[in-house]
């Protein structure tokens, strides 16, 4: 069902909040990743504010959808979305990566309820998602498993073991969302270790493949809703994103993969995001 214009505006404002939260957290931390969290802000906003069946007050609710972040280094986007969704106070974002924080540099399930897994070592999220989807099938659980993976972690062998296994067990309760931003630490994914033809690889592994603009919230939600209708096989949503989306001096620049903004850069970024917020409101 198409979203109302009002709803789309609301979600865009949320994504803007999430991006501002990321910039503030990274500035406070003084280290961390910028590009991935920013480009996945629309996807995480869509998940936490529209798609997921969840309750921020009950992160251990047995019937919740499981959202696994496989590429743990983009944790700031998950933390920011969780904070705005009500899992913890927004101010706690400023503790990112500091001693004693629940917001570890890479997420830990035992420290922050709701994160579902401990992640950071790449290529492991889909495999754990397969286990959870099998448990849901075994217990006839009403919930789904969503895994967010990066494109570059498709260079890890374990991820392909998980792709084989998900197809074998026909896990139609499993949706893998790929952040296809085409960058990794050392450069373009296509230079470092080419992934194309990417969609064809999933098709060859008996997955149902969807592609969309991962920075268009309405398009992403519509795509996930179509993926939810698939029966008898797992689905992948290849979300084409622009690295660093929302902060123009970071956009498309792989050097922002693994570093935070300094104070000056953060101020420019926040001013830009503030202006974007005004535009969203003006166009509503």
């Amino acid at each position: 069902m198409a979203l109302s214009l009002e709803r789309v505006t609301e979600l865009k404002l949320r994504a803007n909040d999430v991006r501002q939260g990321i910039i503030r957290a990274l500035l406070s931390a003084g280290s961390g990743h910028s590009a991935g969290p920013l480009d996945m802000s629309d996807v995480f906003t869509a998940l936490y504010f529209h798609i997921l069946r969840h309750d921020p007050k009950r992160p251990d609710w047995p019937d919740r959808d499981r959202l696994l972040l496989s590429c743990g280094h983009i944790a700031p986007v998950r933390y920011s979305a969780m904070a705005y969704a009500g899992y913890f106070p927004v101010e706690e974002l400023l503790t990112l990566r500091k001693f004693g924080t629940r917001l570890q540099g890479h997420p830990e399930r035992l420290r922050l309820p709701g994160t579902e897994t401990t992640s950071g070592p790449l290529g492991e999220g889909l495999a754990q998602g397969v286990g959870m989807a099998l448990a849901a099938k075994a217990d006839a659980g009403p919930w789904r498993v969503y895994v967010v993976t990066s494109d570059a972690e498709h260079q890890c062998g374990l991820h392909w073991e998980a792709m084989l296994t998900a197809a074998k067990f026909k896990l139609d309760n499993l949706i893998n969302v790929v952040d296809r931003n085409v960058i990794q630490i050392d450069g373009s994914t296509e230079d470092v270790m080419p992934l194309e033809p990417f969609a064809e690889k999933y098709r060859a592994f008996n997955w149902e493949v969807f592609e969309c603009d991962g920075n268009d919230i309405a398009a992403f939600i519509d795509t996930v809703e179509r993926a939810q209708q698939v029966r008898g096989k797992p689905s992948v949503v290849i979300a084409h994103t622009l690295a660093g989306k929302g902060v123009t001096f970071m956009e498309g620049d792989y050097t922002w993969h693994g570093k935070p903004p300094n104070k000056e850069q953060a101020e420019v970024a926040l001013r830009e995001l503030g202006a974007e917020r005004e535009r969203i409101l003006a166009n509503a």
Partner: protein
Amino acid sequence: MLSTELKQVPTRNGFGEGLIEAGTRDRNVIGICADLSESTRMEGFKKAHPEQYYEIGVSEQMLVAMAGGLAACGKIPWIASYAMFNPGRSWEQVRTIMALNETNVKIAGAHAGVSVGPDGATHQAIEDIAIMRVIPHMRVVVPCDAVQTKKATLLLSENWGPSYLRFGREKSPIITTEQTPFELGKAQIFREGSDLAIVACGILVYNALLAADELAHEDGVECRVVNNHTVKPMDEAAILDAARSCGAVVTVEEHQIHGGMGSAVAEVLAAKHPAPIEFVGVNDTFGQSGDPAELIEYYGMGTASIKEAARRAIKRKH
């Protein structure tokens, strides 16, 4: 007791029997195998509990990761392959997904040690105890015979926590009975003596008992033999008591002497009760093809080697 009449059964059979029973007692017990269901003895579970069993092919990292997902949803997965690959190939997944993330996954490491025999060095896991015991939260259990392996399988299934169970391929003597008490983390004294303590684990506990008997006849020394089946968390009290009562220790394991059970014993003694210690195990080398008994002898884990180590340890007492 130590006659050659003893019944010989591979420890892996104990695992297979224990797993079937664990799966009956609790339907949340899951079996996952990486293409070795017959040789790891998971086949019986597959037949008895097909709805609790997953076959995933030759993918050992997947074993751990998928089991972590199942465990996070309340299942109790046992993952089986050869110890060389499980946990040999999946160490980082074990650390991150099982231990740091604290999931209730149980690793069944089959065909451990040089006693896997003709398959050769690529398939002889002799570093697995070291790489598992160094990980926080991991429990490491190396039972001494098939009967004890069955008990360990059942107990680990019922006790929450990431765990590694190590067992072997070859037939080995049954030295305990159904009635012999068995508790995780509680070492067992199988023979009393106060001249030397022989602390062993796995199928070599039998060799340790043989060596102790021969030492009594040949040298007139009485050795305490301790079955130190739970390498982690280790029964420190039992180890300290053995060292205090006997004054010297020999450790015996089918594993590298660096980093294994013997090292764990040495860590305890060095910190709390320094005593002469000699290590019986593989000494910084790889195995090769051969008969299991022949390899045990060649790599210095036979009865004669244990006796030599015992004599060296006793000499160092004064």
